């Protein structure tokens, strides 16, 4: 082999070797999720709840994705704004999570579904103000009519959904609905006497109680 060709061969081999090493270094089959990391001394999976919201998280629930109950509160104490808490010793699998805030005006929740918990890994889960639901209070301001059915559906909905009332609401009383995803809603009130009342585009925002007087 001529010296020039040999140099070229050595150079190409070095480039190939370098690329192979870089490829091996970057790829990690275990890193399907860039947001989880080595658990260090943790023997089983861990979920780290990071409160990036301005509110204190009062309770946190984690239940297997195929279970239909949230189970007990997993926080020993409430989690202040900008603090984090580790939920340890979680058996590997898919989980659903719920964080709950009790505010001055109402209560609010934030959800995440099908969280992959793996052994010896920490899963970081963030909560922000925009993560939480909003609430809606509908006040009966009529002179003497009773609300017998109330429907609250997203503006884009094509039907009125389920009746939100569990019992009739008389004059001066109110219905307080919580755990509503943020967005704009249409409201329909069915009275015991007279025609229905319909209100369009009522906003529900995260960590906010919207009050709507109806008559």
């Amino acid at each position: 082999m001529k010296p020039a060709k040999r140099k070229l061969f050595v150079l190409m081999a070095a480039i190939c070797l370098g690329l192979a090493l870089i490829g091996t270094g970057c790829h990690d089959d275990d890193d399907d999720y860039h947001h989880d990391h080595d658990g260090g001394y943790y023997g089983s999976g861990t979920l780290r709840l990071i409160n990036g919201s301005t509110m204190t998280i009062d309770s946190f629930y984690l239940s297997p994705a195929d279970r239909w109950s949230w189970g007990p509160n997993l926080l020993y104490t409430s989690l202040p704004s900008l603090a984090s808490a580790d939920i340890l010793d979680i058996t590997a699998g898919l989980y659903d999570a719920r964080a709950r805030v009790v505010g001055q005006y109402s209560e609010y929740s934030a959800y995440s579904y099908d969280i992959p918990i793996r052994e010896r890994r920490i899963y970081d889960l963030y909560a922000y103000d925009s993560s939480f639901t909003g609430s809606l209070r509908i006040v009966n301001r009529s002179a003497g009519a009773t609300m017998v059915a109330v429907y609250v559906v997203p503006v884009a909905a094509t039907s009125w959904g389920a009746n939100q009332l569990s019992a009739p609401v008389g004059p001066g009383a109110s219905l307080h609905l919580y755990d509503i995803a943020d967005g704009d809603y249409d409201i329909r009130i069915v009275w015991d006497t007279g025609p229905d009342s319909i209100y369009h585009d009522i906003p529900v925002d995260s960590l906010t109680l919207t009050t709507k007087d109806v008559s």
Partner: protein
Amino acid sequence: MKKSLIFLILVGLPLLVLPAVKTDGADFSQQREGALLNARETPPAAVGVQEETNQPRLTPRILKSKSADAGLEAGAQQEKRDRYKPYIAGEGEKKIK
């Protein structure tokens, strides 16, 4: 005469248009939680956790109707409150706008 007519149109037209855009839903009030109001006055640099779109995060979307354990919400309710029943597409009477 023409100038007066143009003036009347320019001044009067917005007055006629304004009531037309008022909707039924315009009269409502909103109470934001106190900490949220304070946070808006805080400079972004003071916030330790920066919101990023690619982080795994909780959301207000309710995809499953899981029940709470007994006593879960105890102590939090000072008035009669009901959990919102999320809308299921097509459920209930058809909406006519």
